[in-house]
Every structure is written in C-alpha cells, then in structure tokens.
C-alpha cells in the first residue's frame, strides 16, 4: 500500500506522523513543502482531492493535538483507484503557516486541481500561495476586506433583545457550548450518563 510507503517515507525523513480516525496525518516543514509533495506525487499519489485551510486560534491545548502555528493547510492526496495502478491510499499531509508571514508554496504545478481550492484558502484565510498562476479571491467579492474564515473575523450577528434591556449575547451563549466557559446554563458539555436503551 502506498499509505504505508508514505508513512515509511515520513518516518525516514523525521516528519511527525499521526493516525486517527483512519486518517494518516503527516506534518511537513514549511520550507521543504514542495520537495516532499513532489516525492508523494512520485510515489503515485496522482490525485489531489482537497486543500483545507484551518485556523487553530483558540484551539484548546489540552486535547493532545499540538499546533505550533496558527494556520494549517491540510492536503488530501489520493492514489486514485481505477486509474493506472492506483490502490486507493489516502494521506493527509499538512503544513503549519505562521500568522506573521502567511506564505507557502503552491502545488498547482504538481496537481492542477489545486488551483481553485488554493484560491479558496487564500480568499477565506489570507494565506498567500507563492507561484500560484491566478491568485484572486474566488468566493468573496473582489473588494471584500478581511478573510472570513479566520477565527477573529466577526460573525456579524445581533444579540437577542428582551424587555427591560435584558439580552442574550450570542457569543457568550456559544462560549458555554464550547465547554470552556460557564455559558448561560452552566452545563459544561460533559458526557451524559444514562442507561442505554
């Protein structure tokens, strides 16, 4: 399986590897991103299924998932079954991008299908892909300011108002749901106990 091959390659190069929920995550360095991705392509991962941007600002530290930088870009590489000698392996290499210098290399020259999703990550997170052939906003209007999927981008909602000036602040309400603050009801999102029916 190419998945095992990719894991062996990552361990040999000293890259961090994590497997959870059937996904193989490989953390690539920002500098050598292009070289490692080219190696994966040469290994037979002929299909880039997705480029996923994640903003880890505010991600709880005690979860066991360490995130050295604020942004992460996760690539989903597939050795496409049904074409050439593809065996259906999927790997999820990722690269962490610092907030101060949000730039990384494009992979559009390896997989042309990265064109749209990289533009999407640029649009919604503000990460610049060096060498991208056509880096423009894709989903938001061209003159839009800011990058909406960043965690610090406001949602633009209004608090629910009641008599005598009482109101529910949506953000405070959701803080309770995130299980880290008290919220409205004080329930901290704990696992419920109850008989299994």
């Amino acid at each position: 399986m190419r998945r095992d091959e990719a894991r062996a390659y990552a361990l040999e190069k000293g890259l961090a590897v994590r497997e959870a929920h059937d996904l193989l995550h490989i953390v690539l360095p920002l500098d050598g991103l292009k070289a490692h991705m080219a190696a994966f392509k040469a290994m037979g991962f002929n299909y880039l299924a997705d480029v996923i941007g994640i903003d880890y600002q505010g991600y709880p530290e005690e979860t066991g998932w360490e995130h050295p930088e604020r942004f992460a870009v996760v690539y989903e590489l597939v050795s496409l079954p049904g074409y050439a000698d593809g065996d259906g392996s999927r790997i999820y290499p990722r690269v962490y991008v610092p907030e101060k210098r949000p730039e990384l290399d494009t992979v559009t020259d390896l997989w042309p299908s990265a064109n749209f999703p990289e533009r999407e990550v640029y649009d919604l997170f503000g990460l610049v892909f060096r060498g991208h052939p056509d880096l423009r906003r894709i989903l938001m209007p061209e003159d839009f300011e800011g990058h909406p999927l960043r965690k610090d981008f406001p949602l633009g909602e209004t608090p629910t108002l009641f008599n005598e000036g009482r109101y529910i602040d949506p953000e405070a309400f959701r803080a309770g749901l995130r299980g880290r603050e008290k919220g409205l009801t004080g329930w901290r999102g704990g696992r419920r106990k109850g008989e299994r029916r």
Partner: protein
Amino acid sequence: MIPEPKELRTEEMLLNMGPQHPSTHGVLRLVVRLAGEEVLDVVPHIGYLHTGFEKTMENRTFHQNLTYTPRMDYLHSFAHDLAYALSVEKLVGAEVPERARVIRVMLNELSRIASHLIFVATGLLDLGAMTPYFYAFRERETILDLFEWVTGQRFHHNYIRIGGLKEDLPEEFPGELKKFLDTFDHRVDDYQGLFVGSPIFEGRARNVGVIPPEVAIAYGLTGGSLRASGVNYDVRKAYPYCGYETYDFEVPLGERGDTWDRMVVRLEEMRQSARIIRQALERLEPGPIRDPNPHFSFPPKELLSSSMEAVIFHFKLATEGFEVPPGEAYVPTESARGELGYYVVADGGSLPFRVKVRTPSFFNLQSLPEAARGHFFQDLVAILASFDPVLGDVDR
C-alpha cells in the same frame, strides 16, 4: 467605394455570460474569449451564491448543522446530510443500526435518481430538447412526493440524525416505492429513446468537450463526469460506506469522455440506483433506527410523554448539543456529482471547530476550460450542462 479587404480576419472578443443566464444552471458567470464562434478560453467566476455555510456551521451545534447541509446541493441533498453525519459519527464512534443503514442507502439512491432526472431534463433542454424535460419532471415529482411523505420536506429532507434517522418509515412506504420502481425502468428506456440515437443529439454531443482520463484526474474531476472518461472510480465501490459493498450494482463507464458519454453514463446510473433500491427494500427488517447511546442520540419520541429523563435529554441535546471528542475526520461519499466529504475538526466542545466541505461541483468546474477550448460557443452550453454543476454545491 470601400476597397475589398485583402484577407478575412476575426477579432478576439470577450463575452460575459451570466451570472443570470438560463443555461448556467444557477448563478455562474463565465467570461468567454471568442474568436468568431470558437471558444479560445473560459474563465469561470463563482461565488455569487456564497452563503458562508462553513463559517455558520462553526457556530452551531453538531445537530443544528444538519439544517445547513442539505441547502448546499439542493438537488441531491440527502448525500450532504449523509456525508456530514458519517464524519461526525466517526468522531463520536456511533454505531448505526442495520435498518437505519439500509434506509439511508435506499433514500440516498432515490435522491440520486431525482438529481439525475434533473440533469437529463435540463441538460437536454440546453440542447434544445423540450420533451424530456416534462417527462423527467413527472418522475421526479413522484420521488419528491415520496420524500415529503417520509421526511416532511421535498428538498431539504433533514431526515438523518447523528447515529441514525429522525424517525422510522411509514408502514406503507416500501409498497409505494416498489410501485414507483416497477414503472421506473421502462420510463428510463423511454427517456433514452427520446434522445440517444437522435441525429441532433449525436451531432451536438459526440466528440464535443472530450476530456482524456489523465486531464480529468489532473483537474480533480470526480463522479459521472470522471467515469465518462473511462476511469472506474466510484466512492461507493472504492471506499464503501453504509454497507454499499454488500449491494450488487455496476459502475457504468464511458469510453471517450465527451458530452455524449457524460449524458449516457448518468442515464445508466439511474438504472443501477433503482437496482440498489430494490435490494435495499428486500433487506428492510424491523429494528431500531438510532444508536441507543443517550450521549448523542435523541430519545424515542414516544418516551417524551412518559419519561422525565427523556424530556431532559431531548431538551439538552436540542439546545446545547453533545460533546464530541477532539479529532479530525473525513469520510468520502459519492454524491450525484462526485466525491463529497466533510472534513470535520472537533475540539471537545459541542460546536465543530472547523467544517470543510469537499464539494464535487467546485472541483468539476475546473475542468470546464479544458473541455470547452476549441469548440463552438453553443457547445460550451452543452459541455457545461454535461458536468452537472449545482451552484449551491460550488459556492457553499
């Protein structure tokens, strides 16, 4: 007297098509560079239907998000519900009972048929064939009525819950569905007779918009459009979910990867979907429809009038949701348009930290310039229709 031109020349022209144009299947804007009638290049401009679902979903509980998922691909909305539920179920470790899995497969395929009917209807309408449109919509109406009966909604079913289904099927439903399937196969034959072999359709679709398999893969094409190019990649076969591996069905493949293949492959897929539904109907055994784990599953509705505990659980689940252990999950599924999956990041609370939807139409649209270059402008409309884009699926 005007002197005769020494040579004929055409000027390149930029033509804007859309975003409000009947043949763009929604709000897609194409900027086409033309030399006379010939398409030199197409640049798709998307985002006119961008609603920020991904941002909204970060701020709603895992169950509330099931309201948003079907609104992306409003034609095959059941697939979106299913894909999202599968990813979350992987994170919480839910065990979906067999009956729920069978019903999921059954309704998913039914929804796929409805979506393909729209594809055939509107695709042929773009080629100037009016008749199939009305016939296909008649079948689709029956399917939507069936869905309304089961789920209460024609389009945005919201029938799936994390760990199972909202409620059980009505008792008479399998019989009615069987009645529909009895007539369905020869209706598909009828539709096929309406356009396959017609000289107009052959002339407009054969060898138009050819995508070789290597180009299709490089540009991220999936679904029926990829299979039309001869690549045997169907997520239901390659990464089975919901027990698809136990159903007996074939994956129709095209040979040339042109508009003709993309049309006919989906016609054949409808027959295969009907075949899967028939098998699912046979497997329908009585049983539970939800994982009984009270941590994330709603208590049965009939308990709400007798059990205080059930009322509390129901209230807590509906208002505050449930805690999902930290982690990241992705389950690929096959929608009517291609590979669909939700990359869900959970941080331990009851809201998803990040939801990324891998929508097939978004990626399929990248191949459009490759397919349309060098063809006539009127073929561009046919090629676009053959990719079956749903703009809600593209823009999210």
